[in-house]
């Protein structure tokens, strides 16, 4: 797995060459393969490169309504790929304050090609920053993904 500290353009290019899933160093990760980027009281959430790679081309994203309360570990929406809906679980608790309207068009163009940047899914007003301690950092998440794939 490739770990990047910045410059996600490099991520896209190197991923094509190496065909391995990537993580971004400064994000936090859930075992259900969502990432969160925290900025003060605001959190941006999406699915990881590992997830989009395993899911296949995303054809539809079911987004929550603005104002929806999300809870760490619980589902708030779903992606559709290869005839399957897959739950998206929130890595943090709080209130949805923004959803990525770009996903209503051609979601594969953003979720699959830019899962950590243009492919973000929701923004949340954080309820409890302490919950971030329940998540993995980039190195721990990378190791988790490698172990999960090795089991199958």
């Amino acid at each position: 797995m490739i770990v990047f500290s910045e410059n996600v353009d490099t991520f896209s290019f190197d991923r094509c060459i190496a065909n391995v899933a990537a993580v971004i160093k400064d994000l936090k990760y859930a075992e259900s393969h969502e990432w969160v980027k925290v900025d003060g009281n605001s959190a941006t959430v999406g699915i990881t490169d590992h997830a989009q790679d395993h899911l296949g081309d995303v054809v539809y994203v079911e987004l929550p309504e603005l104002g929806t309360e999300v809870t760490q570990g619980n589902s708030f929406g779903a992606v559709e790929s290869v005839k399957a809906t897959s739950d998206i679980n929130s890595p943090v608790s709080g209130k949805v304050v923004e959803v990525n309207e770009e996903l209503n068009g051609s979601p594969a163009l953003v979720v699959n090609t830019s899962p950590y940047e243009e492919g973000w899914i929701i923004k949340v007003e954080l309820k409890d920053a302490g919950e971030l301690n329940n998540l993995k950092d980039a190195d721990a998440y990378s190791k988790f993904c490698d172990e999960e794939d090795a089991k199958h």
Partner: protein
Amino acid sequence: MALFVLVHSWLLPVTNRIDPTYTGGHDSISSSSWNSVSVHPDQVLRLKKTMGLLRQSEKLGLPLMNLVRFKGMPILDQLNLEEKLLRTTSDNWCILNDGADAPTIVMGVSGKPAELLELESVIGDNVPVIKRFTGGGTVIVDEGTIFVTLICNKDAVPKVQPYPRSIMSWSGKLYDEVFQGIGDFQLRENDYVFGNRKFGGNAQSITKDRWIHHTSFLWDYEDRNMTYLKLPSRAPEYRSARDHTEFVCRMREYLQRSAFIDKTIKALDNYFMVQPATPADVNSCQVAKFAHSTRLLSKQELEDACSSTKPGTIAQSASI
């Protein structure tokens, strides 16, 4: 007269094994609690049978799967049951519904009626349209359709990850065993086909710890029912723009209905300890309140979708 019996909670009938906060696989078999319960003497026999099955399954290392069979269950009821069992129980289930009732159109979660259906005839003929909770395309089902649904914990099948292609790779192998030597069966671009003709449409839904893979098999169908469906814009390459009557085929031309059901159960035996469950068992293990996402589209919704496909309709109405 009731007996008082000290039982391991996992040995209670499936009706009592409900855990809405379920977070793990069948590791939870070893982490249950002991309860003192009042048990009718008839249930003692069932407990003995369940204990026997548990000993057998532990011996073989296979997870339990509850097999429940219906005949003619309406598809909306079936889908609601499936979604509830997926999200509110921690058991593995196989649901076999031998035929639905009246012809019904079933779209996937992102299906758009205007793009997928010949709406004027659907509305004119009062054909019900359902939007289901799983992904995938549009089918029309009736009494000639046989449904096989598998609901599993994510660790139930070794080497299968809770992702669509991994699940389908395994289901393809399962049905390879069912259709061995019959009609050039294969999983082709995620469809079940004989040669280049589709006879089974499948779809899935995956949660954090469980997944469902359900299939509608075209045992038989009415050609005229296929005319309600448009050629979808998202279609597998092997379809080659064929219309429905040239693209699908009838399973009855390849094997007997009872043989298909028997072979499916036998194939499942290779992966699970299959235990029959009655519809009453299923009903009693369900939680009282559950918000289904599968729904029947209203006539108004269909009419609005139909109107949206007609350019100039609003202007003409305004000028009258």
